[in-house]
Each structure stands twice: as C-alpha cells, then as structure tokens.
C-alpha cells in the first residue's frame, strides 16, 4: 500500500524539480546576434610637455642624474601615532597636540627615511627643513612641481646621518624639540606636519628612498621619544611613531632633445604626454548594439619585446588639439577621469580599451574624440616610450571598434 503522504511529497518534489540537460545544436543560419568591427585612423597626434609630477611614485629621489635634478622630497607625517599611549590622568596620547601635557616631556624627535639600496656610503649632505609659517597644505602630489613648489620653508633644522645595518640603510634626522614645539602648539592642532628633505654634494648621482606608496613595511616615520611622569615616584621613558602618509619628489627635468618630440613620446620624469584625435564621422552604434572593445592602438617604435610598461589614457573634453609640440607650465587639457583606460605594452603594441569613453562620447553625439596617453606612475620615470604617430603609414595609430549586435 502506498503511503498517501509520500505521494503528496513526491508530487511536490516533482513540481519543484525541473532538470536541464543538453541543449539542441543548431546551425547558425539566420539567428540573431552578431559581431562586427569598424576602424578609424587617428586624425591628429602630437606630444606636449608639462612639469613632471612624481606623486604616487613608489620611491622618493634626491640628487642629480643625466640632467634630472631632484630638488626636494616633501614628506608629511600623520598627526596620529601608530599606537595610542594612555597616561595616568586618563588622557590618550595620539595626536601631536596631545603631547602638550604637564606629565609629558619630549626628550627627542627623529625622522627616519629608508633607502631603497643598502650599504650606503656617501659624502653627500642631507638636510631637513620644515614649514612653520604654512598653516595648511604644503604640497599636493597631483599639482606640486618644480615650477610651483612651496618654498616657504624654514632654515635647515637638521642634517641627516646614514645608518647602515646588515640588510638596510636609513637616513636619520634628529630634530630639536624646540622645533617640535611648533608642531604641538595648542593653537595649531591641524598643523601641516610637513618636512622638506634636500641634499648637498650629490657626487654619486641620486638616492632613492621608499615612498609611503610602497607599503607599510618600508614606510618612513617620525619617532617621538618622551618621558611620562606617572606619579611622584614613577617616570616612564617611551616613544610614539607617526608614519609618513604623503610624500612627493620635486623634480626639475633636463632640456628636451630633438628625438623627444619627433614621435609620440611619453615620459614621467620629463613630463611628456601625447595627444590623439579621432573622427568617427557619422558612425554610430547600431540600435541595441554594445561595444565589445574600442581599442586605441599604438605601436612602439623601439623593438623591445621585454617591455611591458603600463600606460594610461584618458578621454579629454577638449576638441581642439595643438598641431605641433608644445610646452606648458601646467596641464591645460581636461581629463575625463571616470573614463580612463590602462594598458600594458605587449609585443610593442599598446591597446587601450576605451569603450566606456567612446560610449559616453558617442552618446553625447560627438564625432571628434580626443585622448591623451601618459605613463602610469609605476613606470620607470626615466624611461621615454616613443610610438609611431600619424605620419607613419604602416603603423598608423587607430581606433578599432568591435561591437555586438542584437
């Protein structure tokens, strides 16, 4: 006898289970959906120069080499210590102005920068300045350059000592506590906490230090040694560290060579960027279609298959581009930062997928689309990458669109 409840359950189970197996295989005769492609040659292209911006680099530089002058490295310490210290009154020592307390006495202050290379021996003289007369921002990693950097700094407040151990080298600046008092003035709780590190006697080219962008393990810091008088009989010697959270090397580039402007050149340390203009004419995406790719394709002049640098490209809002090389004191082109693309060089080809940018541009009924290209911040800043420009017939830069139609 079959159990009635079991039958009910089996019925419900059958209701809810429907299984999918193999699909039918058809010949693609008149089925919808297809892929198509269209290409447009780049109409105009040129290179331009702006003051180099080193913000975001993994390294800080000081010294001179091959015509490049690394004038200063600006650094900014966090106003928060890495760990909090609790004093007997219940107050917490964390921010710089917290050190203003009757039970706290600053013994010494030390700024430490970590060299990238080890076993550093040098006759160069590293020095430190700070910015007691600047109440707010001292530098901007996106804007500060050799033409506009803030020189409202103090006289030299310390000279650096190179400390070598078995695996690394450090540059240490001892800062007199009288300077540090400017930091912790209770009237300036939001002090800039910024320093400028410079160098004299750069006989060995340039020096590299790890930047805050390289990660926590190599980050430089400001160490504050202090005494805490816990009570009449107990005095505690301790220290707090404040990491460097922002930094920037101020770099003066060398004069350009003729080769730098012959083709489409990009270079971080020289501030070289390139511009491209494309006219898509009357073409528009067929109704319902979407971009698979909208590749801006450039060809590297140098045959270097090992080259896999990452390059960035942005849609510009500007329509008119200069026809020849130009030098500007600041960036004059407006980037659409939400519509950028990055690409790695592969077999001397560079292909940016600009489908988002082109979708936007075409949706605004534009037929002229302008892009710039520039090195990513982690590219060797001294490398100059040159691409064929519109004068080349064989390697003419182009925009190749691949799209899917419903």
């Amino acid at each position, binding site marked *: 006898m*079959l159990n009635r409840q079991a039958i009910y359950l089996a019925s419900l189970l059958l*209701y809810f289970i429907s299984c999918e197996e193999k699909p*039918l295989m058809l010949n693609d005769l008149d089925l919808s959906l297809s892929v198509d492609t269209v290409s447009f040659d780049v109409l105009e292209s040129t290179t331009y120069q702006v003051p180099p911006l080193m913000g975001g680099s993994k390294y800080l530089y000081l010294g001179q080499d091959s015509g490049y002058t690394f004038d200063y490295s600006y650094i900014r310490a966090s106003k928060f210590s890495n760990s909090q210290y609790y004093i007997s009154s219940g107050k917490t020592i964390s921010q710089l102005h917290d050190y203003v307390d009757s039970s706290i006495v600053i013994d010494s202050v030390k700024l430490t920068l970590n060299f990238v290379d080890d076993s550093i021996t040098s006759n160069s003289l590293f020095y430190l300045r700070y910015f007691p007369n600047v109440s707010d921002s001292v530098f901007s990693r996106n804007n500060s350059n050799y033409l506009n950097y803030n020189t409202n700094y103090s006289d030299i407040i310390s000279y650096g000592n190179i400390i070598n151990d078995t695996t690394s080298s450090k540059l240490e600046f001892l800062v007199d506590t009288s300077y540090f008092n400017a930091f912790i003035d209770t009237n300036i709780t939001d002090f800039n906490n910024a320093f400028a590190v410079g160098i004299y006697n750069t006989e060995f080219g340039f020096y590299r230090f790890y930047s805050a962008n390289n990660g926590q393990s190599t980050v430089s810091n400001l160490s504050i040694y202090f005494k805490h008088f816990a009570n009449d009989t107990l005095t505690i010697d301790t220290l707090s560290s404040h990491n460097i959270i922002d930094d920037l090397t101020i770099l003066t580039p060398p004069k350009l060579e003729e080769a730098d402007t012959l083709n489409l050149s990009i270079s971080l340390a020289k501030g070289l960027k390139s511009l491209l203009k494309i006219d898509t004419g009357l073409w528009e995406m067929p109704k319902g279609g979407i971009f698979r790719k909208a590749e801006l394709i450039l060809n590297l002049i140098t045959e270097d298959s090992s080259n896999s640098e990452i390059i960035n490209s942005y849609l510009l809002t500007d329509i008119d581009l200069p026809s020849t090389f130009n030098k500007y004191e600041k960036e004059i082109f407006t980037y659409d930062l939400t519509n950028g693309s990055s690409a790695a060089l592969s077999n001397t080809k560079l292909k940016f997928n600009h489908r988002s940018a082109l979708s936007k541009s075409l949706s605004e009924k534009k037929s002229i689309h302008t892009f710039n290209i520039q090195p990513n911040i982690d590219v060797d800043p001294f490398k100059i990458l040159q691409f064929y420009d519109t004068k080349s017939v064989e390697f003419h830069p182009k925009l190749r669109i691949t799209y899917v139609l419903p």
Partner: protein
Amino acid sequence: MYYLRLVFILFFSYSFYDAQSIYSSYGLGLPRSSFYTSENGLGSIGLVPNFVNKVSIGNPSTWKYLKNAYINSTYESQSFSLKESISSSESSQFGGIQFLVPIRNTYAVGLSVKPVNSLNTFFKTDTASYLMHDENLSLHKEFKSGGGVMASSFAFSLPINAKMNVGLSFDSFFGSSRTEKSIILNNVYYRSLGINTFKGSKYNVFFSGDFFESEKIILSIYSGIVKTNKPLSAYVYNFDLFEDTDGDLIPTSNDFPKNTNVDTLKVENIYAPNAFSLGFNIDFKNSLNTYFEFQLWNDNAQNIKSLGLFNDQIVSNSHIGTGIVKFGNMNDKDWQDKITFRLGVYRKDYKLLSIGNNIIENGLSLGLGIKFGNTANQLDLSYKNGSRTSENNFSETFKQFSIGISVGDIWFLRRRAKQ
C-alpha cells in the same frame, strides 16, 4: 526596488530553465492540448473518457461519474532531437495538478493549475573559431527561453438530464516567461534578456451526452468550446544587450555597460485562444472504448512580437485523433483486468503567422493506469512518440514519458449516525 525585483525574478527563473521543442521558440510557443497522463496516454485532447470509464479529467461535464474525489498531478519528461542535429535535448517539468470533487453523482467541481503554453527552449550553435585583427576569436550562441502562461482554473458540471451534462470552467491566466539570447566571444557572454508577465482569462463550455445505447454499445458525444474572456496582456521588460563580465547571468554594475537599460511596455492582446472540439466515444460495454476527436483552435491575438526567441506566432491548430482504451476494474480477479490500457494516434497541423509552411505533428501514444488502495487511487503512465516537420524549417522527433498520480478520497458522503 522595482528593478531589483525584476532582477530577482530573472535570477530565480534561471533555476527553472528547461530544454524543449525548437517550436517553443515561436512567440508564446506551442499551445498545449493535453495536461494529464491519462490524456497523454490516449493521444487525446481531454474530451473523451480517458481516466476511468465515462470520465475524462480534462472534461468537467464528465466528472459527475467519478466515485471519489481526486487530486491528480502529472510530471512529464521529454526528449527532442532535430533532424539537422546529432544531439538531443531532454527536459522534465510539471504537467498539471487538479483537485476534483464529484457531488452525489450529480454535480462536480474542480480546481486546477496547469501550464497553457510551453516556452521552454534551449539551443546553441557550434563554436566557430577565426582570427579577427590578430585576435583568436571563438564564437558560439545560446538561446534560452523558459516559463510560460499558466492557468488556474475553476470548473463545475451540471446535469441537463439523465444522459446529458454540461461543464463550465473559467481559466485565469498568470505566469511569466523569460528569454535569453547570448553570443559568447572567447568565453565572455553578451546577453540580452527579456521578461514577460502575463494576465488574462478565458472560459470553456463542455458538453457530454449518451446519444445511442444498445445491448452492446453506447455512443457518446463530447464537445467543448473555448472562448477568450480577456485577451492575454503582458508587461514586457527587455534588458538591452550587456557584457556579462562577472558571469552572474544578470546585469550588474560589474558588467558593461554599468547601467543596462530596461525597456518596459505593456502589450495588450497577445493571446486570445478560441477553439471548438468534438469527440465521439463508443463504449462496447466490456470496458473497451474507442474514440475519435478533432479540434479547431485559433489565436486571434495580434501583438505577439518580441515575446519569444523568434518573432512569430502560432495562429491556428487543427487536431485529429483516434484510439482505444480498455478501462481496468478493481473488482476483477485477473491483474491484467485491473489495469487500464490506452492506445492512440493523432495529427496536429499548426499554422504560423509569418512562415507559410505549416508544422505537422504526428504522434503515437501508449498508456497504462494502475489502481491501488481502497479509494481507487491510480498511477498513470504514458509514452508518446512523434515528430514535427515543416518544409524548409526544423524537423524534430520527440519522445515524452509522463507519470500521473491520482489520489482518491471520499467527500460529501453521508455518514452513518452513531448507534
């Protein structure tokens, strides 16, 4: 929230994709004419007796002859293969569920839920590989559709006289369907999706009557009329093509474009079925019956575009079928006499709106019904084999196996007073 609800429906619905006839891709797909295993086993459209003697569970006018109340449910499994294709497709799905209550051998009422149309399809193309601008490109396409129009039905029957009965049923349409068209380029899916939700209603009038009786036979006539009460309307949600970058089947901000456009429109008059059916049954009074049925069905709807994978519509269908059935009797001694045997053949002729050539469906069906338990529970099994052909179009063969369970109980029976 509205958009999220749509996405949820879409995501949920993927769990219920089936593979079925390629002809389910046209508009709202193939209209179903049988819903239960006992009908399938006889190749019937449910007009003439197929469940037990004098009773078709698809024809309310016959329900008063039931001796028990029943809950019927059917589950189907199909296999399809195209003539042009070496592969076949299998699927399984719910066929229908019904609750029937005869009242004192005079009246009957019933409730049911059943799929009216079948939109379930899944087909793909072979992978083609070629070089496009220094890029090795592999390409194939996938097309899926699922769901369909469901009907919840209330029916009852009344006697006209001792030999004639009439049945009325009201079907309320509901349900949803979805379509997905994909082109796959180097394993990245570019999908376009569609969701449709349905609403509408129709009513049916059934008639049954014994018109001739002799010592050896009873000739009965059965008929049915289907009229649309409120043509099916649909809310149609068409998602634009998008690159399913994250492979989660639905458009999200991880895909391209980040914001997929959804066109929403209400489409009226997409399904308006009307039908006339007539059947004859000869009962040889030894449990053996033979029948003949035909049906003329047509869809007067005019706005069917963009609901299925192919923009077309089945506008009419004619059905003709015949077969024999030997009903089992629980009280017989031999086991073979307790079993119901069914055999039928049929032919359907579907006409499409755009394509000139009709789809011809021929089928042969076999079925068994095994009674068990004190309340005449019944386990029905059926097997159907057939083909659908159309000149200059797809030709397919199909096999269908269905299983139906009918659980009986006694309702509206006067109980004896306690002694």
